[in-house]
């Protein structure tokens, strides 16, 4: 049974919803995905019908985002009513935050590949272009970024591991 929120509680939830919509780790995520994810953060358990009432999204969109959330292990099916209605639950809200952190790692890995490709190309052409105006700046910048990326990745991995331990506690 999905618990209804009284008007005052709903207003407080709306504030939290707005805050989380702009939460830095969630920035860049699809609005429909983010909206549904945040309602699982605040409400724990929801049905498709309740989600439709809260978000105004179509059943198709909701169903698609629910599948996405299930595939990411962010939510799970917890019960089916006698009428066949499924209840989905997000066990602990922090799962959503930890998951977004992993997204950040993926972003940095892609960035690392691109910056290393530029670095290799510059090295190949260095003799021909090293006297051109601006070369030193680009060369130093690309090298600094390429050197920094493994550190950043290492750092993120450390945080991620700590967070996973936290989740298990």
């Amino acid at each position, binding site marked *: 049974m999905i618990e209804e929120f009284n008007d005052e*509680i709903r207003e407080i939830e709306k504030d939290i919803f707005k805050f989380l919509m702009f939460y830095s780790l969630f920035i860049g995520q699809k609005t429909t995905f983010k909206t549904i994810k945040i309602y699982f953060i605040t409400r724990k358990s929801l049905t498709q019908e309740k989600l439709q009432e809260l978000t105004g999204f179509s059943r198709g969109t909701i169903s698609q985002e629910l599948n996405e959330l299930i595939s990411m292990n962010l939510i799970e099916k917890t019960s089916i009513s006698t009428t066949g209605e499924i209840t989905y639950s997000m066990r602990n809200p922090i799962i959503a935050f930890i998951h977004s952190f992993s997204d950040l790692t993926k972003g940095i890995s892609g960035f690392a590949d691109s910056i290393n490709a530029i670095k290799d190309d510059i090295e190949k052409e260095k003799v021909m272009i090293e006297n051109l105006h601006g070369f030193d700046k680009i060369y130093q910048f690309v090298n600094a970024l390429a050197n920094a990326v493994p550190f950043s990745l290492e750092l993120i991995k450390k945080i991620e591991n700590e967070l996973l331990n936290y989740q298990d506690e």
Partner: protein
Amino acid sequence: MKTDSDEFRHILELTKAITQEYLSQNIGGNINYLKEKIKDFLINPLWNNDSLHQLKNKIKEFDINDDKAIILWKAMEETFDLCHAQHLKNKSHIYEGKVRVYEKRVIDILVEAGKIKGQNAVFGSIIGYLLLHGSLTQSQLRELTGFSKGAISQTLKILSSTPAIKKEPLEGTREYIYTFGANMADVASNIGSYKSESNELAITFLKRKVQELEKNKDKSGYEILSKRVMQMINFFEYNVKLLEKIKESSFIKELKGDNT
């Protein structure tokens, strides 16, 4: 085609004279080379410069021999290079030749990285160029990014309100110069959206919501929402401690280069 030929008769006669002259002076002359040169001479605006014709006449007047021609050309080359160096000094934000291609590639990946965090292309480009160049004016940023004055100005306004960007008047002009405050070490060690300030901000906000919830203890939904909010607060508090621990670690000190 008869009419056209009549209309262009004088031009075609001149063309004929030039071609005959070229072929008589250059045995086995390459007609395609001549066509290319003439076409370039006629359509390239570079050759419309009056000084260019004066230059040609002046050199003709000198009637110089081959040795002198080499000396003259060397002196002219020095003048070309000097002008170019002066131009670069005035336009120091414009990088040269292939370097610009690499600059564009770097900017493109910074823009892509920004998009992951939800920044638009104008935002990402401006941050990218400021990171690369250090300081730039609004018009220089316009020239580099190709974005409209309005888009640049609006984004700079937002960026200037953050501590990362410094805005200072440019002496002797009505312009402002924008500088990216963080150095490369900061950028390198930036774990961006995971800074402790954003966690602290979340804790303050959520604690305020707990107080509001407390006033509605008997209302439906209170229990579940307060439990979820408390779980979030615990998590953000854990993050603050975690980041402090990491900041003090030898790993970060090594990264920042201050482990001496």
